[in-house]
């Protein structure tokens, strides 16, 4: 059902965990629907210096979370905001159609984390 790349990321997910002093945190999904993910980011010089995630969900949810952190690591915030669900799926060698909608939420979680960082920064000014 899943590509080799998806299974590889599911078995060996990158950047798992939490960042206690994160600069931004984004959570999307809902355990009722079966998928919930949280992204933590550290920002340095307007770039993503570190990203970590925690995910409750199916294989696709875990693999897309892992891939998203890999795609975004080191990117500027502007570049990271342009990462789409389609980019994540493409880099994983595709996802089953039914999973494109329900489990491919990681890019959204990343964007939420960046917005959270920007909001906190605004508040400090």
């Amino acid at each position, binding site marked *: 059902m899943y590509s080799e790349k998806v299974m590889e990321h599911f078995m060996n997910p990158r950047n798992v965990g939490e960042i206690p002093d994160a600069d931004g945190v984004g959570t999307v999904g809902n355990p009722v629907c079966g*998928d*919930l993910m949280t992204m933590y980011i550290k920002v340095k010089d307007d770039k993503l210096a570190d990203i970590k995630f925690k995910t409750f969900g199916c294989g696709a*949810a875990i693999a897309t979370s892992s891939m998203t952190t890999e795609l975004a690591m080191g990117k500027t915030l502007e570049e990271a905001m342009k990462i789409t669900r389609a980019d994540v799926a493409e880099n994983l060698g595709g996802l089953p159609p039914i999973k494109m909608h329900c489990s491919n939420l990681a890019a959204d979680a990343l964007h939420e984390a960046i917005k959270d960082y920007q909001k906190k920064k605004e508040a400090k000014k």
Partner: protein
Amino acid sequence: MDHGAGVPLNSRVFEAMKPYFMENYGNPSSSHSFGNSARNAIAASREKVAQLVTAEKSQEVIFTSGGTESNNLAIKGVAYRNREKGNHIITTAIEHISVINICKFLQKQGFEVSYVPVDKQGVVDLEKLEAAINDKTILISVMYANGEIGTIQPISEIGKLAQENNVIFHVDAVAAAGKVPINVKEENIDLLSISSNDMYGPKGVGALYIKTGTKVQPIIQGGGQERGLRSGTENIPGIVGMGEAAELARKEMKSEGERLTRLRDKLIKGVLDKIDYSFLNGHPTERLPDNANLRFSYIEGESLILGLDMHGVQVSSGSACTSKTLEPSHVLLAIGLAHEEAHGSLVFTMGKQNSEEDVDYVLEVLPDVVKRLRALSPLTPKEIVR
């Protein structure tokens, strides 16, 4: 350990079927000797299926294309034929999707359906069932056992209620037939659906037991085969295979049932002992010998399936993520689980191919799979990630 999804054909069943493809290809409706041979083969199979469910007469068994068709013939057949008497049907909240969808279909045609709830262990609420009976009730349809959570229903008591109230009683025994003893006479069952492929027989064939005198209208019109109740040229190899499978299941039921029960209980106890925050879904003792439905907090079923598959263990789940509809199992919701709990449930269905070593192996690999996924999950409380 996913025998609920599909089981291989028993080789003895295959051998029994073989002559009916190339050599004995007669049509049972023909008068010549080829037709005779086919008629005899059907009669012998009918007898074997009748014995499996302890029917009084083999003529009370009608062959169909499978469990779904048997359920359609039973429920629609009774509904249409008894409409003048009433339009009310009683079933339960945890029936197989075929029964639920047939009932929904009939509701659109003016029938009223009561879906009786079950308790936390999946046992139908007998008081509510009795209270649901009214003077328009024509049919009670309750499954013998649930293939997903394994719970066996108090069929004799429901049969008695139906009889006392002069209501036809249909039992969907697809998940139970061949695994637990069924006695349609003692249990007051009027109609009973079974399928062949759930007992190591071929796919595409099933049967409906119809007690003599039960009023059923055929839903397939044609040449009048199967006493007019199921027209269409008979699937001879399939019927022969089902008969053989029914006989094997009946003969091996006691020994295989005891063996599977031991494996099942070892698996359940092992998982509950080794893995914190794991729970059994369904009834602890009144359950199918081959079924263990286990729930793991904080993680999701499809990722559990994939994690176990990496270790060569195949199971299934009640999670939405494994279904076509993206809805969690209606059975798990009906026993009172929250959506996130239903998502974290795994179904183990064991069969002939499984041994004690398989159970030991699952008990060896499953704790690590659960631990790894819990470490990934934002829902896992910090104190239990070790």
